[in-house]
């Protein structure tokens, strides 16, 4: 049964799901179909007595439809009866051919929006079957759109015929220039239309979600650029709105760029409040996933969305990486655009765009449908359902290009449905009883133990955080980035991947080959109980010895320790000095060495500091070369 007229599926209170002949079916709970066997003679009374006998066995048992020529009649059944059980029981009677539940064929809601045939994405992902189950519940779930705003007149009134239903589009803050979030880029209007255009309204396009309200914040300007501080404020505004109104929200952010703590904390904020945030992986032609999408692997509430094509391949522009959660239609996506000109290349009212930006609102709208069906689910359960229900686009269950697969709207919406299949349950039980040897129990037990560790770890971590602030390098940063606006990032252009440590070619260590190299081996000088680098002791570093250095060089002495360990007599002979001078020189040298070694009081400490600094400079020039730039952050 296909409702071309597009009437919404009426709520069918008198139907139920159950098992019939080994299959799950939808049937009417208040009636039964009975097919009578033909009676021997053409005797009306014999037939009537059979009918009466059957009706006597059916609670209520009123004749809804009298027997047809083929002997099929429909009886009403009192509420609360187990229809399949009753049908089975009656089927055993000699005077019937069969008795069965009145099975309902499911209606596939095909929207009547005029441009629906151009929206390849919805048939591809099975949206009609999903809409049959759920079109979005505004009393439970909200959609947040953080983008470049929405089409509206200069006066601030919603003006797009597909985006102006009263009460459905809530106008949040315009973080770019205040006032109403009027779209000056077209991106936001397009994204909003994909997630939640007015649907089944004989106008334009259909949205993924038909019922949930959209909360619109504007952070991207006319050029599609936006700041992370604005993004964070918008996430918090929408999250707070949802919390205050007792709603769950799926936030759509079809932008991104580099990493910073502001963005990460904002995503964490939404996630910690049980919300979801769907973000685009970026369009850098299989480049790395951009932020905030890239938080998907360490923040529960973040879903990273890549783009797929009408032939179920990954779009060439879609970024790749372990962070990709799912892919959704993103190539040639028709949706709404502003009713006024913002860009000569964008058609008025409706146009086709490409990008992971377009794929993201499909997932946003779908997640809101899923949550509408299962409002009790956590954000992680919805995310898990998105992953597990997605259609794998190749071998394996995960791929850096297509993540956990291309979204499947019907399966996703059904995910988590309670299925009462008694027999399966028995089978599973049987299997456990049969195989539950000690090993299996042991494994469960120890699993539990480890899970407990993990949660404990978290507590310990919090406690000790305070104690060792020294090592938590990002604490101070976190505190301040919150209020700065320094990262203006472009939403749609290419960004270098964030990494504290750039890629490198690992060196190969071959200690076994030593000695054949030109590099001289330079042991440290031992003096008393301590050690010195020979370079620390070179005479030119000591002003006190500047006068003596030329003479000393003449006899081959170039280091402090060579003086300090020489007999004064020998020194006097070699240099032709008198003993007094030689004694003084050796004593001074020994004193200097003690001072470098840090044995003295605070005076020598200063000497030490200077010399160490000099040494460090020499050291770094020596072994850095040009290619160490970037590894050594001494300039930080």
């Amino acid at each position: 049964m296909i409702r071309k007229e597009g009437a919404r599926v009426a709520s069918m209170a008198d139907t139920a799901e159950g098992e019939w002949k080994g299959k799950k079916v939808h049937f009417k709970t208040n009636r039964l179909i009975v097919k009578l066997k033909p009676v021997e003679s053409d005797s009306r009374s014999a037939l009537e007595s059979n009918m009466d006998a059957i009706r006597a066995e059916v609670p209520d048992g009123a004749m809804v439809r009298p027997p047809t020529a083929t002997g099929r009649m429909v009886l009403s059944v009192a509420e609360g009866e187990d229809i399949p059980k009753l049908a089975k029981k009656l089927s055993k009677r000699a005077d019937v051919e069969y008795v069965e539940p009145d099975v309902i064929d499911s209606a596939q809601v095909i929207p009547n929006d005029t441009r629906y045939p151009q929206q390849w994405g919805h048939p591809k992902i099975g949206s009609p079957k999903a809409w049959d189950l759920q079109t979005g519940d505004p009393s439970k779930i909200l959609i947040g759109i953080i983008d470049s705003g929405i089409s509206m007149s200069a006066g601030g009134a919603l003006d797009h015929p597909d985006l102006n239903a009263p009460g459905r589009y809530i106008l949040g803050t315009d973080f770019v220039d205040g006032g109403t979030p009027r779209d000056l880029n077209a991106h936001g209007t397009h994204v909003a239309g994909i997630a939640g255009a007015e649907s089944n309204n004989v106008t334009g396009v259909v949205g993924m979600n038909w019922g949930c309200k959209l909360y619109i914040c504007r952070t991207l300007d006319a050029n599609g650029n936006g700041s992370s501080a604005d993004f964070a404020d918008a996430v918090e505004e929408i999250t707070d709105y949802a919390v205050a109104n007792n709603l769950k929200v799926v936030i759509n952010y079809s932008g991104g760029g580099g990493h910073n703590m502001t963005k990460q904390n904002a995503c964490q904020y939404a996630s910690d409040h049980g919300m979801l945030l769907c973000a685009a992986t970026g369009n850098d032609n299989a480049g790395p996933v951009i932020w905030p999408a890239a938080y998907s692997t360490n923040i529960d509430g973040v879903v990273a969305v890549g783009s797929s094509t009408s032939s179920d391949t990954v779009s060439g522009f879609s970024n790749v990486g372990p962070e990709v959660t799912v892919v959704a239609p993103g190539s040639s996506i028709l949706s709404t655009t502003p009713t006024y000109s913002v860009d000569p290349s964008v058609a008025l009212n409706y146009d086709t765009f490409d990008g992971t930006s377009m794929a993201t609102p499909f997932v946003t709208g779908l997640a809101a449908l899923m949550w509408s069906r299962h409002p009790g689910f956590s954000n992680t359960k919805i995310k898990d359902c998105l992953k597990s229900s997605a259609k794998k686009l190749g071998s394996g269950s995960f791929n850096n290009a297509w993540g956990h697969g291309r979204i499947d709207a019907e399966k996703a919406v059904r995910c988590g449905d309670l299925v009462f299949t008694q027999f399966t349950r028995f089978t599973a039980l049987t299997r456990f009883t049969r195989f539950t040897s000690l090993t299996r129990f042991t494994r469960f037990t120890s699993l539990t133990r480890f899970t407990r560790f993990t949660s404990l770890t978290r507590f310990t971590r919090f406690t000790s955080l305070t104690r060792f602030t020294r090592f938590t390098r990002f604490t101070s940063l976190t505190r301040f980035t919150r209020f700065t606006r320094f990262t203006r990032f472009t939403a749609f252009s290419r960004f270098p991947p964030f990494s504290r440590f750039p890629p490198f070619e690992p060196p190969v260590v071959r200690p076994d080959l030593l000695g054949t190299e030109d590099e001289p081996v330079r042991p440290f000088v031992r003096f008393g109980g301590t050690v010195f680098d020979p370079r620390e002791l070179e005479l030119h570093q000591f002003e006190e010895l500047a006068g003596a250095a030329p003479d000393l060089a003449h006899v081959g002495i170039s280091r402090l320790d060579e003086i300090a360990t020489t007999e004064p007599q020998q020194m006097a002979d070699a240099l032709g000095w008198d003993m007094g001078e030689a004694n003084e020189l050796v004593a001074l040298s020994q004193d200097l060495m003690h001072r470098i070694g840090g044995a003295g009081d605070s005076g020598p400490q200063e000497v030490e500091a200077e010399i160490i600094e000099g040494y460090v400079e020499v050291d770094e020039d020596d072994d850095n070369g040009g290619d160490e730039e970037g590894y050594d952050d001494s300039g930080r």
Partner: protein
Amino acid sequence: MIPAARRVRRDLFSVVIPTLNEGDLLRMTVDSVLGETRYPDYEIVIVDDGSTDGSCDPYRQTDRPIRVVDGGGLGVAKARNLGADRVDGEYVVFLDAHCTVSPDWLSRMAKALRDRQVGLIGPTFTQLHEPEPRGCGVAWIDDGMDTTWYEPMEGNQPYDIPLTIGACQAFRTEAFHSMGRYEEGFASWGSEDLEICLRAWLLGYRVLGDPVATVAHYFRDERNYEVDDHDVNYNALRMLFLHFSAPRIRRILRAVGGVVGLDRALDAVYESDVFKVRAELEAVRRRTDDWYCREFAPALA
């Protein structure tokens, strides 16, 4: 030495367990690895470094993926290297013979090790039979080189740590060899595990700790074999002389001054090949010890 272009089997994780008279603890360790590990493809190589308690014998002939290699008193660094020479895995993990593991220990570490920047990774450690975690990674906290558990950041992803202890260290086999393996100049026991972490950082790798993968380690008060204080001192000094600048070593020596036998250990270090190895490492390292201390050991910076 690097075994000549040894072929590794992709995705295979080789678990090397060096052991010396570990008795029932070895059996507990092997049973835990076999019983818990969910990673599909792994092998166990037990390096028997001269046990006299017969604890390795049950594994010499078994249909399980276990091999025994005889070391015969090499000391822990050489014993681990010997095990690494005999493995076929793309990844290798060195596990003490008195540990139990969590089901995901290999899969989580293998995932992190796919990144070529990552030199090695360690799990989160707990004391055996105690649920309270000890920590994930350690750091030097003062100029006497005292260590403490490193403070983990939040989250469930592996993160950079200064050092991780030798009870469980996992590498890509290729990276393990190219970073020079455990330094064989070390005497019987001590510091070789921290040294390889320090070396990995200095050579340009990252060292990670995984806050989820868990290994329960038996931190015992007394060892089941003799550990020579001289060797411990010698090893600690050797690590300093391999990587640290003279002013930094002076500072540390001042801080630990008065340790019995330190002079003798210093003599032994000077007689060793430590300066040759140091020269080799200095020639190829990508980061300085100053960098490391600024980053991870402020007390030594």
